[in-house]
């Protein structure tokens, strides 16, 4: 594995955003120790709920890591929040006048000749409805249109960036991303998150390597390009959710004449897989493609929402996270950590199977990034971060609206003033992060964060003991953060009365757990030391 590798991640569309959300939480767990990522969020809709949720999460992550020297902090080792993430956004703005539909974008509308080449060509491939629906909520499963538009949105922006005229802030971010990609040359490793059954992601995955390369070519006046040895990877995520079927009444106006229908998602997936299997450009550009599927009934995102019509996008599209997205995050982990198949001249399709018995899916620590040492690593990082979450949210009432991190910090404050510089703004932010990771309780109502949303999509075991997944407030109060696993050897040291919290706090107060004694962690500023201290204490608490 090259030490010089430069890591890039592109999240496209609603599913791509949720995969990025998972990726961010995996960074927080410490699964990407010491690595730096340039993350590009790519969407057609800047108001999209999933996009905003993911970008806000990454911004919170970066504010947690922020130092006086760097807006996004530094990469650390053997700790939580150990990867450095640089976020870049790009939105193909279809909200402005004259950019709302294909017919407007392509100037077809203004052409008077009904038999012009452009008109005839577009009519050959695109029905009238497809040419005229509102693009501001994405490509609505019209991938033949979406691929064309996404490619042109990227190359058009490259032309604009080259001209240097009237460049907006958001567009500058794409320029920075392009420059980083160019500077990475052959060391670039680019991973793309997105679905292949929907609209924006499915449209973009096949064209994104070529679109970025052509954008660099335009921007650099023929002198810039993606390195020949740069590696591309992507998820081939087939259908795993459904939503309300659009009613004819909703499709009666021109803007909504085309609405994605989830009953066709299986067909879309099949067609997409056939395409990936046979398209020479895709096979040449992507080295590794991870086939992630969902063999059980798709989850219904409209269930219990009492929606009067199909949600096509926008702020309302804020879907729950799903275990397949954690599988996609794990695929990215493999791509960035393993050199296997990277020298192949044609795409390699990777998959792994999991156990499905007695109508339930059971997932152990060995089912994500591999078994053996990788399984141990996943179990340790996942379990330890969930335990940290419970220390903040469950033991110190962070879920109930208190600043759980501050209360935990006060326990350490009894013995050292090392962390006195951590202000309430920081502890509040970290507590907030844990709420989005774990859960919150408002007026007795349990609201699941990422972790419990993921668990909701798994009917059987998910890494931890079933008792660790309770959502009942009374049972949560009694939950022992040191006894989340079924395996006793992974439990923390505990007392017959009072469980593991008392010994954990004693460990936390020991000199041995100070990050100063572990220089490898690269914890230099106060908040990095605090996080590393908690990490060390949790590790030291585990029975061995």
């Amino acid at each position: 594995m090259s030490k010089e590798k430069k890591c890039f991640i592109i999240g496209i569309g609603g599913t791509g955003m949720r995969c990025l959300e998972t990726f961010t939480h995996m960074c927080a767990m410490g699964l990407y120790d010491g690595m730096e990522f340039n993350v590009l969020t790519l969407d057609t809709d800047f108001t999209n709920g999933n996009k905003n949720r993911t970008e806000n999460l990454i911004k919170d992550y970066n504010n947690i890591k922020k130092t006086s020297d760097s807006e996004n902090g530094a990469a650390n080792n053997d700790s939580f929040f150990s990867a450095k993430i640089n976020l870049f956004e790009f939105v193909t703005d279809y909200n402005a006048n004259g950019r709302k539909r294909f017919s407007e974008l392509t100037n077809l509308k203004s052409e008077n000749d009904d038999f012009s080449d452009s008109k005839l060509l577009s009519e050959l491939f695109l029905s009238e409805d497809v040419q005229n629906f509102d693009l501001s909520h994405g490509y609505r499963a019209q991938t033949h249109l979406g691929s064309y538009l996404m490619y042109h949105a990227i190359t058009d922006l490259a032309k604009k960036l080259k001209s240097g005229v009237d460049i907006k802030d958001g567009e500058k971010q794409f320029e920075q991303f392009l420059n980083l990609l160019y500077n990475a040359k052959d060391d670039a490793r680019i991973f793309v998150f997105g679905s292949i059954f929907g609209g924006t992601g499915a449209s973009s995955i096949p064209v994104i390597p070529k679109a970025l390369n052509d954008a660099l070519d335009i921007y650099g006046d023929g002198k810039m390009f993606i390195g020949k040895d740069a590696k591309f990877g992507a998820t081939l995520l087939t259908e795993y959710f459904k939503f309300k079927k659009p009613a004819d009444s909703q499709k009666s106006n021109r803007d909504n004449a085309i609405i994605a229908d989830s009953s066709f998602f299986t067909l879309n997936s099949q067609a997409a897989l056939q395409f990936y299997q046979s398209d020479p450009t895709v096979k040449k550009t992507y080295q590794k493609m991870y086939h992630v599927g969902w063999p059980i009934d798709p989850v219904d995102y409209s269930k219990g929402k009492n929606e009067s019509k199909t949600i096509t996008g926008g702020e309302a599209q804020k879907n729950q996270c799903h275990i397949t997205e954690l599988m996609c995050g794990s695929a990215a982990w493999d791509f960035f950590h393993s050199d296997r198949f990277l020298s192949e001249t044609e795409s390699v399709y990777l998959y792994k199977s999991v156990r499905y018995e007695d109508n339930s899916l059971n997932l152990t620590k060995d089912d994500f990034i591999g078994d053996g040492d990788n399984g141990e690593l996943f179990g340790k990082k996942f379990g330890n971060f969930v335990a940290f979450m419970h220390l903040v949210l469950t033991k110190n009432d962070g879920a109930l609206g208190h600043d759980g991190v501050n209360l935990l910090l006060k326990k350490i404050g009894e013995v050292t003033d090392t962390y006195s510089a951590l202000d309430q703004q920081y502890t509040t932010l970290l507590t907030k992060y844990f709420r989005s990771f774990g859960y919150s309780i408002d007026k007795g109502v349990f609201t699941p964060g990422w972790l419990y949303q993921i668990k909701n999509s798994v009917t059987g075991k998910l890494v931890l003991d079933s008792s660790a997944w309770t959502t009942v407030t009374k049972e949560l109060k009694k939950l022992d953060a040191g006894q989340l696993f079924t395996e006793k050897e992974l439990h923390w040291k505990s007392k017959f009365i009072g469980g593991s919290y008392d010994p954990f706090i004693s460990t936390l107060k020991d000199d041995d757990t100070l990050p100063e004694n572990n220089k490898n962690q690269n914890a230099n500023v106060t908040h990095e030391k605090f996080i590393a201290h908690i990490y060390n204490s949790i590790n030291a608490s585990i029975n061995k």
Partner: protein
Amino acid sequence: MNNVFTILLIVQKKMNLRDIDGLVTNTYMFAVITAIVMLGLAILVASMIQYQSGASPKDRMKRKMWFWILGILTPIIFYVYNLTMVMPNIKAGPAMNKFFTHSALSPVVAFAIFVILGVVVSKIFKRKKVGNWFNKVN
């Protein structure tokens, strides 16, 4: 243990002025021992109080409270001991007069020793639970 034994021997018979000097020395030594024993008890109690979590943990306050309860009990127990076990065995008159001052002073000494040793132990083991005895409560 020797001090306890000596005192027990002395109190078996009524003491006069000649025996008082030895009794006073032993009383102060016993006061020190009582303070140490009570401090040991305070350490035990502090260790048994579990760290509490949540918005208003009471564990630190409980350790402080038990330290001072045992601290206050130290002179009381020692004075009651002198009053019930030692003084009835001293002859009234000059012997009693001489011992009376020390019987009042020795519980104060026991208390002072308890507090001073408590401060020392608390500062030495500031990362342990006994470190809470003299911490500021946030």
